[in-house]
């Protein structure tokens, strides 16, 4: 308790170590810190998978909490029912939801002729650092490599950032450092969709004169050699267009097709189609939302 001098020395030492680590890691490009991070991914990946299996009933209950909210009145009448029965109901509801997600993923695979590796989101990182990242339970042993496209039945989810043997870290689209080249559904105008750190995305048109209307939809334009993004993956719907600010660019707000706060089943595109599917993957215009 009274060893203040020693603790101050220890504090100074640990802060120096931290700053050294930060300096080493900010320089980027491999190095010892990258090796340690790789080892941590290999170690914590399986641990997270295990933890996800254990806590899954809890996570499912949380995911279903929204659906349950709609039926609150009915549920209050049923509350006296057996608690075990309720748990059973929730898990079967979760299973049905997952089957529906798988169905939609299969539809995307068939329409887009992508080769997908299916995976589940086991962990999400969004703590102090304002990050939009996630861990999936597929890794290099499943054929997943860095800079691959990640999608689900609704649309574009993000890209693979780092890969461990049995798990991979994903950079999700709403992250502020995420950006993807996109194309407007109708006119084919090009632009960049970037994350804003929240659920809404932002679309910056390359041509400030180009027309963009509310409720127009966007797909990925595709990257050279399909790295990191394959073409034709649905991204979202334009919700508002801001008037030209500087005259150099036009910005539109997007509502993404994917619900990033409720991610579960996803697919990693391990092989892209030979020709882009253009807008074939967008849902029919009538069934929007």
């Amino acid at each position, binding site marked *: *308790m009274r*060893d203040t001098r*020693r603790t101050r020395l220890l504090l100074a030492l*640990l802060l120096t170590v931290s700053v050294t680590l930060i300096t080493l890691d900010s320089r980027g490009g491999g190095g010892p*810190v990258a090796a340690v991070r790789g080892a941590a991914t290999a170690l914590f990946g399986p641990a997270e998978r295990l933890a996800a299996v254990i806590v899954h009933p809890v996570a499912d209950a949380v995911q279903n909490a929204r659906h349950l909210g709609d039926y609150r009145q009915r549920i209050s009448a049923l509350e006296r029912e057996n608690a075990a029965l309720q748990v059973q109901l929730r898990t079967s509801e979760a299973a049905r939801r997952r089957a529906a997600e798988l169905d939609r993923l299969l539809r995307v695979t068939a329409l887009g002729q992508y080769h997908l590796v299916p995976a589940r989101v086991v*962990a999400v990182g969004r*703590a102090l650092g304002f990050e939009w990242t996630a861990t999936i339970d597929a890794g290099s042993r499943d054929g997943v490599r860095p800079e691959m496209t990640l999608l689900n039945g609704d649309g574009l989810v993000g890209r693979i950032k780092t890969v461990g043997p049995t798990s991979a870290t994903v950079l999700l689209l709403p992250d502020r450092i995420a950006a993807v080249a996109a194309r407007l559904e109708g006119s084919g105008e090009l632009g960049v969709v970037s994350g804003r750190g929240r659920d809404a995305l932002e679309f910056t048109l390359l041509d400030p004169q180009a027309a963009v209307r509310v409720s127009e939809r966007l797909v990925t334009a595709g990257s050279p050699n399909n790295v990191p993004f394959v073409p034709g993956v649905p991204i979202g719907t334009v919700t508002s267009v801001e008037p030209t600010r500087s005259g150099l660019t036009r910005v539109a707000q997007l509502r993404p097709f994917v619900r990033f706060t409720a991610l579960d089943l996803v697919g990693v595109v391990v092989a892209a189609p030979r020709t882009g599917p253009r807008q074939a993957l967008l849902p029919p215009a009538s069934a929007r939302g």
Partner: protein
Amino acid sequence: MPTPRALLAFVVVVPALLVQVTVLNRLPLPGAPPDLVLVVVVALALVTDRSFALLTAFWAGLAADLVPPATHTVGRLALVLALVGWLAAHWGEQVAEDSDRSAVGPVLVVALVAVVAGLLDAAVGALLGDPRITWSALASSVPTAVLYDVVLAPFVLPGVCALARRVDREGVFR
């Protein structure tokens, strides 16, 4: 460092990290999620001495830097948590002197530490040029994080503190 205590810190912090990324970060809450690791570090700091609190906080932060979905610069949370662990131990001693066995003091320490941690992490991030740190992100994340951490504290603090005291009593050190 006494080994039973170090073992206790390991047994408490590592599951806390896993619960953080697999459950708490997925909760559909507005703002930043509750920070279980931070609350656990504060709990350990309240019942142990400063140098132990400092070391535990440092390696807990380092682990949080490395645990998979994290993509920020390694060392950032280690720096933030080391300082915060030291502060928590410091404030914890004052709280213990002011009022014995009151529940308000420790929760107040959690709230203060959550504010400091949020601002400090944002400051380090801004210094490193992280584009994720914006005023609007800060304005939504810090108040919510403080709120959630304070809500989490009464569930976490008593358990961890009791466990640590028990290990201290039955251990071979001191």
